[in-house]
């Protein structure tokens, strides 16, 4: 579980994400990473297939009129 990611394991996660962190940043970002997991845990696990994102693509020049 990502909630259990240790500081040592986090170093690899950060490197994989392309972040170059010094030691102080690593400790802070580890705390942030764990906090982020609590937010991600609230995302729907198995949303309906027809559940569309709120983003809607509009071809250039489209004018939304209400």
């Amino acid at each position: 579980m990502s909630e259990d990611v240790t500081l040592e394991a986090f170093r690899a996660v950060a490197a994989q994400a392309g972040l170059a962190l010094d030691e102080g940043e690593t400790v802070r970002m580890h705390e942030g990473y764990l906090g982020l997991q609590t937010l991600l845990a609230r995302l729907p696990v198995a949303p309906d297939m027809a559940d569309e994102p709120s983003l809607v693509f509009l071809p250039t020049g489209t004018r939304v009129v209400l």
Partner: protein
Amino acid sequence: MSDLHYLSIADAGAAIRERKVSSAELVEACLTRIEMVDGDLHSFITVTGADARAEAVAADRAIAEGGWKGPLHGVPIALKDIYSTAGVRTTCHSRLLHDNVPQEDAETVARLKAAGAIVVGKLATHEFAFGGPSHDLPWPAARNPWNPDHIPAGSSSGSGAAVAAGLCAGAMGSDTGGSIRGPAGVCGIAGLKPSYGRVSRRGVYPLSWTLDHAGPMARSVEDCALMMQALAGYDPQDPASVDVLVPDYAAALKRPAANLRVGYVRAWHEGPDGADADVCAALDRAVVLLGEQGMEVVDVDLPDIRDFHACGRIILLAEAWAIHRATVTATPENYGAFFRDRIRLGAFISAADYVEAVRMRRRLTEATAAAMEAAGVDLLLCANQYGPAERFDQATRTFPFFGKPYLTMPFNVTGQPALTVCAGFAESGLPIGIQIAGRAFTDMLVLHAGHLYEQARGDLGRHPPI
């Protein structure tokens, strides 16, 4: 006329039109006030005194010649320093843009200028509207005029502080998760996050494209309405702009409240980990005052505040990382530590997480609309903050958004208009705000209800002891 710097936009506009006071006098009063108190408040990054004085003289001349443009003509305002201003540096309170001078005004700035407003300067913000309050940036963090040991919240920190302290009559803020409404609430002023698509974002430095809103902050709801009259309207160059008729906001404020039903969202702030007693009392008092204005207030249940918070924060972090990734990676030393750490959280959000969050956003938006429909309510009343502004020495968390869920985030997620209005003061003397929200594109109704509440509560003339 005493205390010119505290004249409302409505009163200042009328006095200028009637030639009881000149724009030059008003602008000078604000510039003098800035000179006197902003050394302690740090709300301004750039003061455009010479330009403002020249524009005020031109405004007075135009009005004398019969060219009155409206209630903003000759009125001094200021801009959060993420709004592009032609020929005037726009720093985003960041070392990275220390010498950035745009060639064009943001659309909102152009509209305010066209309405005759005089820009007296650019205001402090959290770095790129995200990292703050920081003490490792080229300019200090703005302070709360009600007590400079306390923060003015953010990210429109300078806007909240400057308006409350009488350094300008109104200001522009921006709101991605509550950055207009947070500072408005803890600085004792009014601030509107308009409906998404109502006010152009073009030329305002983005934090999160789908959550960013540009909006007014002023010392009264009426003044916010007057600013909205200039700000609202379709902008074909803002992809999110919607072509909706712009109503007469100020005229709407004068109507009686007819058959309005207000849903009171208790669950978001009540409970053992909820708002403090002062906030709860202010909300209970608001229920009474809105009722006395002829509105019917009923309890309403909306989705869990933690779901709004998570959904909005994930979208914000992902979009902000997309905006800043290249420069943060290449030159991290150009940023303050708060911004640098916070923005890099976006590196841990996968594409699938982001898409799930925007799917969740549609669900939350539809659920909120359905709940309002089921309860038969036109408006929502809810808390704006858990308590008064915290002290600077308490505002040291790198990731404050992993604490209590932001009470303002729901309406960034749904795009509904949300107004913060001062609801009184805590025992400490620090202000408390409440939120009134409406269905999408009912900004006028929100302002109307806020104005009625504000008039019923009174106390509009109370100013910070600075």
